């Protein structure tokens, strides 16, 4: 016969499971705290349904690269994306004092489940497939992918895309730079993929890759400040829909419309152009590859 202890253990376990299934975690959709005023003003200044009332939580990754941020300190306000983030927050009614920054690795930004941020700004490119998993704000920057290399590399003097096909190219994992290699250049050898742009830079310096594909501002910064003998080979042509950066928000977030409106305002009154000139200066004049 089955002993009493076994029955007790089994029964206890079944009850534990049932209890777990019953007391499910709190509902994901926030209670409609702001919806009575939705008809009046959908984006009340400084009073949006944020994670912490009265404060806007912005996320970005660590390390936060130049020229998008400065000195790996997003809260400093220096750097193009840091400046854009603070401007958007101001338009939404959150002065710099009410903005908190949080570190959000790439995977946490796109994972299902509650987010640890209200909005995430980290050079996310807007694509239709990604839109199924997260919300994007209006674009705040038009991206061009660029090939960079170092002096003495076999592709240092290349002027056409065909000349790049025999090269060993690299890009950071999970970026549209990698997709640009596979869709636009279509090289003969498989491209190399790196966890971070730091690893990719080291590989470029070591000569294990001949060229690296990054976005244009990063290309200018890397070749000017970070690589010895770095040089820009050229910009890649846009294929299909032009690539743009957007701010990432949780899927069906109540803030998406307000953030998009703020970004549109920045574009219309010329603030975005001023910020681009300040932080992304000298990003014109790179040759275009055919």
């Amino acid at each position, binding site marked *: 016969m089955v002993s009493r202890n076994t029955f007790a253990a089994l029964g206890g376990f079944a009850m534990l499971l049932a209890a777990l299934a019953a007391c*499910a975690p709190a509902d994901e959709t926030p209670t409609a705290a702001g919806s009575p005023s939705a008809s009046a003003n959908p984006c009340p200044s400084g009073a949006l349904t944020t994670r912490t009332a009265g404060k806007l939580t912005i996320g970005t990754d660590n390390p936060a690269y130049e020229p998008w941020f400065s000195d790996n300190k997003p809260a400093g306000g220096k750097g193009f994306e840091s400046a854009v983030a603070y401007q958007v927050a101001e338009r939404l009614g959150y002065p710099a004092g009410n903005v908190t920054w949080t570190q959000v690795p790439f995977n946490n930004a796109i994972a299902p489940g509650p987010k640890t941020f209200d909005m995430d700004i980290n050079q996310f490119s807007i694509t239709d*497939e990604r839109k199924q998993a997260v919300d994007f704000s209006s674009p705040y920057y038009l991206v061009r992918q660029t090939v960079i290399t170092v002096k003495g590399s076999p592709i240092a003097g290349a002027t056409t895309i065909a000349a790049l096909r025999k090269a060993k190219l690299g890009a950071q*994992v999970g970026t549209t730079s990698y997709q640009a290699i596979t869709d636009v250049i279509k090289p003969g050898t498989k491209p190399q993929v790196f966890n971070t742009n730091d690893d990719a830079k080291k590989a470029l310096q070591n000569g294990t890759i001949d060229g690296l594909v990054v976005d244009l501002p990063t290309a200018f910064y890397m070749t000017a400040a970070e690589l010895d003998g770095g040089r820009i080979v050229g910009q890649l042509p846009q294929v299909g829909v032009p690539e743009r950066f957007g701010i990432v928000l949780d899927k069906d977030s109540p803030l998406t419309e307000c953030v998009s409106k703020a970004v549109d305002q920045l574009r219309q009154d010329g603030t975005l152009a001023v910020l681009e000139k300040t932080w992304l200066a000298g990003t014109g004049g790179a040759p275009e590859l055919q």
Partner: protein
Amino acid sequence: MTTGGYRPSDVQRGRIAYRRRQTVRSVLVAALSTGVLGTLLVLAVTGSPGWDRVRTSFFDPRIARESFPAVLEGLWLNVRMLVVCAVVALALGLVIAVLRTLRGAVFFPVRALATSYTYVFRGVPLIIVIYLFAYGVPGLRLRATPGVLVLGGAALVVTYAGYLAEVFRAGIESVHPSQLAAARSLGLTYRQTMRHVVLPQAVRRVAPPLLNDVVALQKDVGLVSLAGPIDAVRAAQIATAENFNYTPYIVAAVLFVLLALPLIAVTDAVTLRAARRQNAGT
């Protein structure tokens, strides 16, 4: 002497009927308990409020189909590296274990080197060794620097040889000293003793933990993707970033398990056979 068929007695027939009833009852109870547990688990998972989001994020069939070829191609790199690295690591581990078990005062430096090798390379994380080999060595700009795949493979071999050396050493030291004494009394030299008496027994004895380490190596081989090449997990990561969907990781996980199954089955068979041999039929 009755040559007719054996006819069980009533008591025996009663026993057979009782055992059959008990078997049926056990099966029914097992089915019922499995059903209850399974239902509770399924309810617990699918009843959670976020289940739909998780299902589309992790188990999307369309994305699984799209990412399958890329992940499979990455897995092919894993398999090739596994075969090469396992063979070389086993050989290197055996050499180090033998060096470490050399007797005699004159061999002290050799023993010390082998010992410190196992200490260092079991202590250092594999990721750091891969970074040193794949990013540091090409930086030296030596003339015949091999490609990153070879360097990454060397990092794996060097680290795993440390673990395998200790497993081999355990096997060598577990061979009873009477075997060595018998070999000595037969006039075999040390080398002959190792080759014909000790190593065959030792290797057979530690075959199960060795195969276990090879199964572990199968996954660590993917870390070579830190240096640039695309393995199965990296291919899944690329596909995930394209769609902001985690299904490719599930695809990679399933393929890894399928790859490990033959290896694990062989491990279990070898372990069983070794146990049966050593315990003489217990």
